């Protein structure tokens, strides 16, 4: 928390915030003193002029006070928000520029929470810090000093009042805080059970388990209610008892102060002022103890944010990157081994192949066999453990990631679209694309029909592309990939969401597309029909290339390929073209 504050707060603004707060506190604290002056000098000596004069002073002080606190509020508001803004920016930057591996160690959902909720949490606590938390200690000290000045002896009252207050608050927190934590778990349990009832409604009804679900929920509900009653019973004590302690202190002040006045060691007016200070001291003390509630909450958020900021990237650019050779496109895997961090076994073992411009490499294999892992190595989302991958003859590690990504165009399994228009999504990889180029790419991807129906290139794309079906999103993403001018085109299981007919048409068009044919095409697929016409098919199983060749070769000689073929085609069912 301190680390974030040091880095993202402007020290001069914090100083100003403190300064304004001191002004406000001084003014607030002067009012009771002036009141006691009115009593002691004005009333006791019947000096009406003095009363008016003091009243004037009080008016001025109130006015300065409100300016002071407005100034403090201004700096508290701008600084806390500025700090949030800066943390968000650096977090966002860190995340967008981080490598896939770092990204995955924390996970998408958690990163979103950290960038949104956690930062807001810190912002909110920061406002509190710059206002209340700042005011409480200043007020405590100020009121304490003034009270002492009014009457050192009467200050002894606090020797009783403060410990009583501290012990009471401490005891309440000691019992309430753990209960609050368990209450949170119990409410989570209620929500979990209810949510499961929503997501599983069909299964629940199909198995006639309504009553079971009802009982499960009832258990969670009762459990929560019982703890809730207990917790809030304790909390109910809090404010009445604190009020009682403050009132008790006032009684003590009048009694003890009365004695002091009688023995002429204190003026009457001071008594009234002293009582006001006493209340302020006790309330400030309470607020200071609230820090122990607020800060840990922000601390947890801060720790989560720092964890992201501290991630170190394993994939870095070479110190002096060379630029990618401008030769004919080619893609080479040279004895490549890959292992996920901490994994015992290789995820990919000894992958070797070479492909040149105009060729299509297809990778087929079961789920989890390592197909996606293989293609993820090409844009350096991960680095191989050993061996070398070359694009256009240049090793990936020798070029900058920026140049490398410029030379690669990839469609992933999950079709990601951004909110905007069809056009803004299409030109994502090629900002200067003309309309006719875009339409051509859409044609190839079999997407132009529905794009026309939706209203053309300026049709709106909602967040996550929600206004398009899965198959349509997939085709748009393929179009985006084709549009980009690259040396290597990668389609990672992109055709599986398409029906067979579209799949086949799309591949025919790809074959004819000049720009794509100037590069190497890599297709990852599950269907034999998708890969059958590739120049080179890699059959992958358990991270190993168990066969490589054309469809005819593999069909004749490769056992795994035959099995895949069999599972997709009835045995002996000869389908002639």
């Amino acid at each position, binding site marked *: 928390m301190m680390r974030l504050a040091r880095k993202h707060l402007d020290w001069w603004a914090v100083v100003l915030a403190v300064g304004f707060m001191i002004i406000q506190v001084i003014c607030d604290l002067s009012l009771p003193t002036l009141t006691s002056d009115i009593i002691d000098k004005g009333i006791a000596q019947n000096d009406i002029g003095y009363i008016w004069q003091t009243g004037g002073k009080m008016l001025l002080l109130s006015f300065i006070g409100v300016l002071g606190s407005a100034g403090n509020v201004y700096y508290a508001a701008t600084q806390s928000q500025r700090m949030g803004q800066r943390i968000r920016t650096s977090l966002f930057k860190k995340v*967008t520029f981080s490598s896939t591996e770092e990204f995955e160690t924390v996970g998408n959902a958690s990163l979103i929470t950290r960038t949104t909720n956690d930062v807001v949490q810190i912002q909110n606590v920061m406002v509190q810090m710059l206002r209340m938390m700042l005011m409480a200690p200043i007020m405590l000290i100020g009121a304490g000093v003034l009270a002492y000045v009014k009457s050192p002896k009467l200050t002894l009252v606090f020797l009783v009042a403060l410990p009583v207050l501290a012990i009471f608050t401490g005891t309440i927190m000691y019992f309430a805080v753990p209960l609050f934590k368990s209450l949170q778990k119990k409410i989570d349990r209620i929500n979990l059970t209810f949510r499961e009832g929503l997501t599983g409604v069909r299964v629940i009804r199909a198995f006639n388990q309504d009553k079971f679900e009802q009982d499960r929920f009832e258990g969670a509900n009762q459990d929560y209610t019982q703890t809730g009653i207990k917790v809030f019973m304790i909390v109910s004590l809090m404010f009445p008892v604190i009020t009682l302690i403050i009132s008790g202190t006032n009684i003590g002040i009048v009694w003890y102060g009365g004695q002091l006045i009688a023995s002429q060691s204190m003026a009457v007016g001071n008594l009234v002022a002293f009582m006001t200070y006493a209340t302020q001291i006790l309330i400030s003390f309470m607020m200071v103890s609230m820090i122990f509630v607020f800060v840990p909450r922000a601390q947890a958020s801060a720790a989560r944010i720092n964890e992201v900021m501290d991630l170190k990237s394993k994939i870095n650019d070479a110190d002096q990157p060379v630029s990618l050779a401008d030769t004919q496109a080619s893609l080479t895997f040279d004895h490549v081994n890959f292992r996920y961090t901490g994994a015992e076994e290789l995820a990919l073992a000894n992958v070797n192949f070479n492909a040149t411009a105009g060729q299509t490499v297809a990778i087929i294999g*079961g789920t989890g066999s390592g197909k996606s892992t293989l293609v993820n190595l090409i844009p350096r989302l991960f680095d191989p453990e050993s061996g070398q991958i070359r694009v256009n003859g240049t090793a990936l590690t020798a070029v900058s990631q920026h140049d490398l990504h410029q030379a690669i165009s990839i469609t992933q399994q999950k079709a990601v679209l951004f909110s905007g228009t069809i056009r803004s999504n299409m030109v994502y990889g090629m900002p200067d694309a003309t309309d006719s180029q875009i339409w051509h790419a859409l044609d190839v991807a079999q997407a132009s029909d529905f794009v026309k129906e939706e209203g053309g290139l300026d049709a709106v794309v909602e967040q996550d592309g929600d206004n398009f079906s899965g198959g349509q999103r997939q085709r748009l993403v393929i179009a985006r990939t084709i549009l980009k001018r690259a040396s290597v085109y990668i389609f990672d299981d992109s055709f599986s969401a398409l029906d067979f007919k579209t799949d086949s048409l799309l591949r025919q068009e790809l074959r004819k597309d000049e720009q794509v044919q100037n590069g190497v095409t890599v297709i990852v697929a599950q269907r034999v029909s998708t890969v059958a016409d590739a120049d080179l098919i890699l059959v992958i199983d358990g991270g190993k290339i168990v066969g490589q060749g054309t469809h005819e070769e593999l069909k004749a000689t490769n056992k795994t390929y035959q099995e895949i073929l069999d599972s997709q085609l009835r045995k002996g069912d000869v389908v002639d073209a």
Partner: protein
Amino acid sequence: MRNGRGSVTKQRPQSFWGTTIRLFRYMGRWIPGIVIVLVFAAIAVILQIKTPKILGKATTELFKGVLKGQAELKAGIPIHSLPVDFGKIGQILLVVGIMYAAAAVFNVIQQVIMNWIAQKVVYQLRRDLKQKMQHLPISYYDTHSNGDLMSRMANDMDNIGGTLQQTLSQLVTSVLTFFGVLYMMLTISGWLTLVALLSVPLSLVVVMIVAPKSQRFFASQQKNLGLLNDTVEETYAGHTVVKTFNQEQNTQEQFEKHNEKYYRSAWKAQFVSSLIFPLMNFVKNLDYLAVAVIGGIQVANGQVSLGNVQAFLQYTNQFSQPITQMANLTNTIQATIASAERVFAVLDEKEMDESADAALPAKTADAGNVIEFDNVAFQYDPKTPLIEDFNLKVKPGEMVAIVGPTGAGKTTIINLLERFYDVGSGQIKYRGENTTSVSRPELRKHFAMVLQDTWLFTGSIFDNIRYGRENASDEEVYAAAKAAHADTFIRQLPDGYDTVLNEAASNISQGQRQLLTIARAFVADPDVLILDEATSSVDTRTEMLIQQAMERLLAGRTSFVVAHRLSTIQNAENIVVMNHGHIVETGNHDSLLAADGFYADLYNSQFAGNNLA
């Protein structure tokens, strides 16, 4: 998680009083408790209001002694200490002390009771909502987002609970304090009261100027936060796309634009809404000094006593509090009633017709139809009829394959069979009995489903398998797990069958979950099986196990299978071909190929055009 996504929750209730009365009816059982709460809150307020004036008497007494002493000193009478009547002051302080203590006790009791009632009411509301959910038709679930329903269960209940717990007694306290303090002030001095009352219009002016501004800024802050969060979600979700298209820098710039916009609206919202405290404090201070000056002059003129002015000053402080509090309360109460309205809206939804109760004939081995679709018509939306005049007869042990491209509406048949939805016209007969004349639970006893969505609840593996049939014995559960090829992996888990599945399902794999759902169906031992064949979201070995388990489950049963495998399709006695929600063809593999329609097209495009064999 999508809290920021411009979702504007309705803050204003549509029928304020109607909903309030209904909410109060929920508290009907606890009316005596509420009366006690209100009475105790009132007593506590009265005590708290009285005490400053009584404490003031002590000060007056002190001051009297001081003046008397000073007079004596002036008169040259030598005294050790000023002649203060400590006996009287002691008495006053004792009374005050007792009153403070009593107020605290009343307040504690009042809050404990109110909290108890609030918890009970919310408990009851939650229970009713959950119970309601089991009587709502599936169409309700399908047309309402889970997020929305969750928010009613979580946030709205929370709002209601919080308000019942605090707001009710706060409202009483505030109103009573306001009038009580006013009364006490009047008993002290009419003039001073008039001065003090000046703060009321001043406060109102402050609230009226600041509140709408702050609301406006907050709305724009909320909107910008939503946009900002959307950008974050979108960019993170597309992390690799952003990366491989070299868009990091552009995205960053875009984000910073949103971030700056959010900052601008956020600090204003924060500033303006926080400004209300200094401003109200200023009004309070003005009031305080006015009372101090005018009161001082009056004391000097002998019109009021010093103690009374001291009491009056305390009252001025107490006076401004209920005004701000009431302003806050109206917002809270409105939001709460809106919450209650959202909860009641669910409770008022139309329930399923559950009156059918015809008995099903005992399961016999006769050769009649197990399932018969008889002129069935169905549509989700009255404007777009999906299924019309559909006829199908299924004999015992037969398999019906449902095929079609993704999104073709294959689940519609499942919806109708399980009576998640009821047919528009025509009949579906189970062993000759119209399914709509049987109660749903009775009908479903004879069915079991295995879906791709592997829903399991947070509980032990054992309980999840037994979910198929409540009265299944332990042995039956183990046997089912073995039959589903799940036994081996379950026993390898550290806690075996007692392993508690967690919500994120991180402790077992997707494929293993699928095996558990198959085991669950085994336990149910249904007459008719509804199966959604898994596509390839699992590893090869598990896929094989699933395949084998499913085949074993299918053996000898009448079944409806959403089919992805050619072998399944070819073995099926009946094939229902669907596209765009409609049933386009029915028949068997050979007859459909011969018909050369949609099915033939689908089949050929996959397997024929590529010279595969």
